[in-house]
């Protein structure tokens, strides 16, 4: 059996591909692209939510938000490590992010304006992420799959706390309820777009499905999310943002409005409120941290030299 045949045999037999196994170069590249994009999304995602840590309206919410953002940093770490098993370094990935070669989820280019946006992000954005990540627990690459299993546990906690924060607002004062509705109206559509373009337009989908990097199509995952969100909005007592939403008995799913893909591409291509801000923030923090990283290197070298001197 050639290495290639053996690789395909494993994929078909649902065996995981491990870092030292032979894999096609395009499989490797495809994974690096997807995992690093996922890692960058976790890291950039710290900004919109971090933006409200200092303004959280109660000490309990402040603590929950800090621990959520901290989890995201942790997810970023697992994912960078998973990508590193494919032969790329964290600093290479960070450079690709900062020069715009690597992408992050476009949802974070939308501005977080009110406290309800924080709730909506937990509920809808993490909710959409989980639908995708649950599916990725079965991805063919071992380290990515194991990372996803761990991440899913924490994400479902995030979604629950986001929904619970939303519920508090929806059942609160008229102003709080209006804030909740406004956040839902703004974040619902971008959350649906998180699943990516229609399958017919998705550049990487077909090969990723064949290799079982992706296990379900963008449109199927999106449908799952649309369906699960309907009763959640009902419980909140808010208006559904999609006026064309209708249960389709035959399909067993909700039919919904077409998404505004022009807006999707426009935001990805730099016209979101926060595209420049997110990258500038990341670059500024990274640059400001340079003297700190240099200090660690210098300190460690001094210690090593001293140790060598003592040993001599």
């Amino acid at each position: 059996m050639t290495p290639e045949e053996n690789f395909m045999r494993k994929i078909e037999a649902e065996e995981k591909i491990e870092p030292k196994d032979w894999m096609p170069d395009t499989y490797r590249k495809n994974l690096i692209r997807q995992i690093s994009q996922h890692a960058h999304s976790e890291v950039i995602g710290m900004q919109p939510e971090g933006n409200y840590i200092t303004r959280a309206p109660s000490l309990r919410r402040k603590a929950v938000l800090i621990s959520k953002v901290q989890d995201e940093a942790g997810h970023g770490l697992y994912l960078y490590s998973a990508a590193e098993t494919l032969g790329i370094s964290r600093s290479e990935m960070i450079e690709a992010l900062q020069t715009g070669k690597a992408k992050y989820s476009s949802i974070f280019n939308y501005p977080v304006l009110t406290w309800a946006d924080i709730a909506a992000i937990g509920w809808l954005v993490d909710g959409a992420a989980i639908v995708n990540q649950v599916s990725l627990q079965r991805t063919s690459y071992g380290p990515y799959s194991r990372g996803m299993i761990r991440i899913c546990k924490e994400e479902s906690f995030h979604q629950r706390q986001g929904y619970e924060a939303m519920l508090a607002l929806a059942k609160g004062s008229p102003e709080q309820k209006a804030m909740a509705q406004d956040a839902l109206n703004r974040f619902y559509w971008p959350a649906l777009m998180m699943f990516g373009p229609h399958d017919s337009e998705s550049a990487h989908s077909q090969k990723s499905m064949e290799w079982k990097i992706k296990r379900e199509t963008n449109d199927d995952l999106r449908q799952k999310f649309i369906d699960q969100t309907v009763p959640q909005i009902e419980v909140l007592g808010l208006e559904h943002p999609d006026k064309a939403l209708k249960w389709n008995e035959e399909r067993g799913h909700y039919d919904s409005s077409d998404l505004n893909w022009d807006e999707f591409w426009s935001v990805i291509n730099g016209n979101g409120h926060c595209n420049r801000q997110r990258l500038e923030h990341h670059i500024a923090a990274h640059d400001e941290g340079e003297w700190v990283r240099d200090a660690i290197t210098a300190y460690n070298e001094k210690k090593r030299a001293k140790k060598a001197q003592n040993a001599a």
Partner: protein
Amino acid sequence: MSDAIKAATLEYATRLGDDSVVLGHRISEWISFGPFLEEDIAYGNVSLDYIGRARMFYTYAAELASDGRDEDDFAYMRNDREYRNLLLFEMPKGDFAYSQVRQLFADVYYTVLLPELVQSKDETLAAIASKAIKETKYHLRRSRDWVLRLGDGTEESHKRTQKAVDALWGYTHELFDMDETEQLLADEGIGVDVSQLRDAWLKRVTDILTEATLTVPEDSWEVKGGRIGYHTENLGHMLTEMQIVHRSHPGCKW
């Protein structure tokens, strides 16, 4: 509990809560601004510990006040003139060296203070201290390591760290001041006599700074006033930001 002691304990729990929330808030300002991802996580951890302490102290204060207020009323509904935190904790986050030096001063302070508070006759204060001791042990390990690495790292990191030590030194004297309230509680075996702790603090800080090739400043200036609500200009800005959402919606639940 006599009325005088109850009132003093309420004031004391509020002070300790104010210290925790203000420092916790300042640390939280670092999240997503750290020099690398692991530090964002560490800042999150330390900040969570302090917010947790604040909640416990305020909850106890609210219980003693028994006037219908809760932890959030203490944190969000008092202005800077009513806050009783130590000035050191309200200083803006500054650069990484500044925050780590402040943290070292704070961590050594709690390292000497908490083992005393654990022995408090007040069971609630003792229980909070007992939980906090474990956290502080980890905090100090981290801030000590950082100050060593920054002090004895590059020329630039050394310069920045020494500058931070010098800039913050004058705010550390207040950590060891006593007033009537705290004296009453110390005499009763409820509060800690912090005036007895400066030597131990100074010794530990001096050892660490010296190992980090840094100079311990002369005691040439000292700024005080946190415990009577006479703050630096920084606290007002901090609280404005912290309280804006809560205060914009009076009486709401979150």
